[in-house]
């Protein structure tokens, strides 16, 4: 038994078998072969190619009517590539010339091709090496499978397993979210990386930032993930395994006891009614969100409609998806318009070059949308149209400049006129709100509050921008501090601006769903919380145990103190 250490994301415990997710090239071993083995290695390569072709043909045959033409098209293109003799010509040459194994020859070829594509000066095409690379990695996968011959053919079933990866991209998280995974561990990533966010939404523990630790793990190792301590126990001894199994049972029991809170009101000991809403990403999450008696959806992220695909979703498709969410409740659903750029990019960065030095400060979210109206208009029109099926609200991410609001209003006016002229049914009264996540918007919150119908504080970005730390850089994540006086003051300024302008201010960032901050936020005046479904009951319990009048004076002191020790004491005292 040995242990690995990283950042724990969720206090839970998971026990399961490791499953290493291979990202291309990561575990491709290169070794030399003798001259006599060259032809044999080439036959191996051809056999691998053959199985990759068979596998893809099989997938293509399984496509049903409901699978889009796009999926068929991509699959067809991949099959065509696999059947093109040119694909393996160069790798065969490499094997002959350099006397190395087939996997490594493919790897060299893939990297060469990537290099060629990356030199292409066209954002649409340069991202396209992905197709070729994926095809090559399929052959590599077949070759590795032959060698391991573990008899695991069902490559895409992860039930009960613990996913081990170098890092997870947003695209992986989409693919994984439908599996019954018991935990994640990754080499990279801080506490609010995508992996961490996904783990929270799936209610499973994760440990991120293991700094190379995963290289000691193999698929099939028995792992205990202790999210609270940030520890991975590898192949544990029986007594330890037993202890952890008991502890896991206990955690599950407390979890179940939370269920009795579903029908209880979210009100404080001193009688304040608090609104709890859900953050969702997919229409399928609505049922659970509504089953918890939430007051609606405070954040519906729409990025995932735009990712993992080659063509942008049409207006019609968006109307269908938004309407399918709105139809599931008569309560407000806050639809956040496209928040892409930064670490989330459409189809390998085809919207704009992917090699921007500092994407978090670049043309993302509303900036991208106002720049590329072909992206923005169909989404806004779709929301207006879907709004006839429920209570939609439009929320604009990453506002930093008042001009953006003015431009937005002009655009909305134009779109309403357009819809009216085209005699298309739509709801003209959809409330328009903005996210406060750039410090400029928090400092000048009063100016935004004057123009908008509501504000919502996005704490992840607000903290990142205020404290100047990259949210995915685990070397600076120790500086990530939601109770930094600067952060708290910006939150307070936003809440105050809302109450002066008499518009609601909610919070939909990670902080809103973290019970450690619930009392602090209540003490500052926050009454509308929106969070991942997994956190709702925990936060509700916290609210029901809070007396705001007692928290308030301590919070006021917290806003004024710069002494780290005193800050910790105050947080402890507030939470006692």
């Amino acid at each position, binding site marked *: 038994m040995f242990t690995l250490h990283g950042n724990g994301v969720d206090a839970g415990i998971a026990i399961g078998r490791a499953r290493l997710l291979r990202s291309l090239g990561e575990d491709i071993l290169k070794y030399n072969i003798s001259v006599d083995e060259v032809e044999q290695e080439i036959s191996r390569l051809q056999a691998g190619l053959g199985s990759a072709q068979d596998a893809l043909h099989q997938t293509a045959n399984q496509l049903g009517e409901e699978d889009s033409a796009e999926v068929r098209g991509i699959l067809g293109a991949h099959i065509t590539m696999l059947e093109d003799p040119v694909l393996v010509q160069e790798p065969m040459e490499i094997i002959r010339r350099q006397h190395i194994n087939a996997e490594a020859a493919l790897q060299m070829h893939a990297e060469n091709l990537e290099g060629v594509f990356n030199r*292409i000066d*066209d954002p*649409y*095409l340069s991202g396209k090496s992905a*197709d*070729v690379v994926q095809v090559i990695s399929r052959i590599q996968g077949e070759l590795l499978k032959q060698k391991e011959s573990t008899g695991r053919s069902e490559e895409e079933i992860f039930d009960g397993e613990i996913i081990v990866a170098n890092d997870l991209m947003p695209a992986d998280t989409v693919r994984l979210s439908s599996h019954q995974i018991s935990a994640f561990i990754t080499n990279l990533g801080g506490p609010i990386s995508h992996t961490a966010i996904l783990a929270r939404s799936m209610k499973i523990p994760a440990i991120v930032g293991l700094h190379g630790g995963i290289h000691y793990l193999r698929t099939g190792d028995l792992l205990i993930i202790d999210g609270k301590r940030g520890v991975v126990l590898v192949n544990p001894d029986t007594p330890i395994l037993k202890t952890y199994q008991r502890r896991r049972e206990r955690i599950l029991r407390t979890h179940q006891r939370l269920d009795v809170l579903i029908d209880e009101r979210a009100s404080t000991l001193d009688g304040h009614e608090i609104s709890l809403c859900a953050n969702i990403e997919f229409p399928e999450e609505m049922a659970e969100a509504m089953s918890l008696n939430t007051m609606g959806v405070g954040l519906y992220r729409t990025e995932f409609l735009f990712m993992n695909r080659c063509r942008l979703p049409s207006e019609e498709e968006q109307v269908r998806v938004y309407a399918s969410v709105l139809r599931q409740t008569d309560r407000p659903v806050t639809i956040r318009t496209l928040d892409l750029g930064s670490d989330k990019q459409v189809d390998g960065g085809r919207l704009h070059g992917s090699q921007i030095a500092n994407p978090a400060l670049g043309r993302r979210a509303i900036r991208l949308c106002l720049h590329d109206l072909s992206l923005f208009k169909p989404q806004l029109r779709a929301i207006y149209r879907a709004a006839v099926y429920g209570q939609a609200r439009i929320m604009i991410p990453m506002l930093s400049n008042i001009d953006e609001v003015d431009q937005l209003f002009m655009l909305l006016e134009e779109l309403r006129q357009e819809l009216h002229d085209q005699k298309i049914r739509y709801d003209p009264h959809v409330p328009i709100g903005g996210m406060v996540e750039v410090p400029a918007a928090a400092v000048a919150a009063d100016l935004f509050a004057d123009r908008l119908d509501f504000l919502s504080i996005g704490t992840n970005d607000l903290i990142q921008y205020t404290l100047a730390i990259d949210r995915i850089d685990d070397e600076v994540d120790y500086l990530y501090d939601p109770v930094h006086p600067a952060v708290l003051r910006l939150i307070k300024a936003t809440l105050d601006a809302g109450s002066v302008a008499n518009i609601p201010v909610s919070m939909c960032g990670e902080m809103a769903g973290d019970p450690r901050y619930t009392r602090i936020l209540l003490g500052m005046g926050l009454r509308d919380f929106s969070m991942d479904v997994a956190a709702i009951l925990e936060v509700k319990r916290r609210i029901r145990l809070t007396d705001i009048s007692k928290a308030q004076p301590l919070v006021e002191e917290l806003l004024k103190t710069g002494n780290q020790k005193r800050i910790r004491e105050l947080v402890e005292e507030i939470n006692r």
Partner: protein
Amino acid sequence: MRCILRVECNIQVINKLGLHARAAAKLVKLSAGFESSVVLNNGSASADAKSIMQVLMLAASQETHLLLTAEGNDAQLAASRISRLFENRFGEDE
């Protein structure tokens, strides 16, 4: 002696995404149906239009001009069908 027909024409990539994987697959599928050889030139780079890998490596983005050379009995038909595929933006919207 058999007369081999050789047709050359200029075509332009007009679809937004250029010759990406799916478009290239369509081109290859169409080209493979002709008896003639079909070669595309992008400056000094040249590709057999029946090989998707070679077509992809042409790296033809939107607005690229290509020289198409078809050689064989059905060269005329091949050239006109293939130019039409480019003109129709490979069936894409933009």
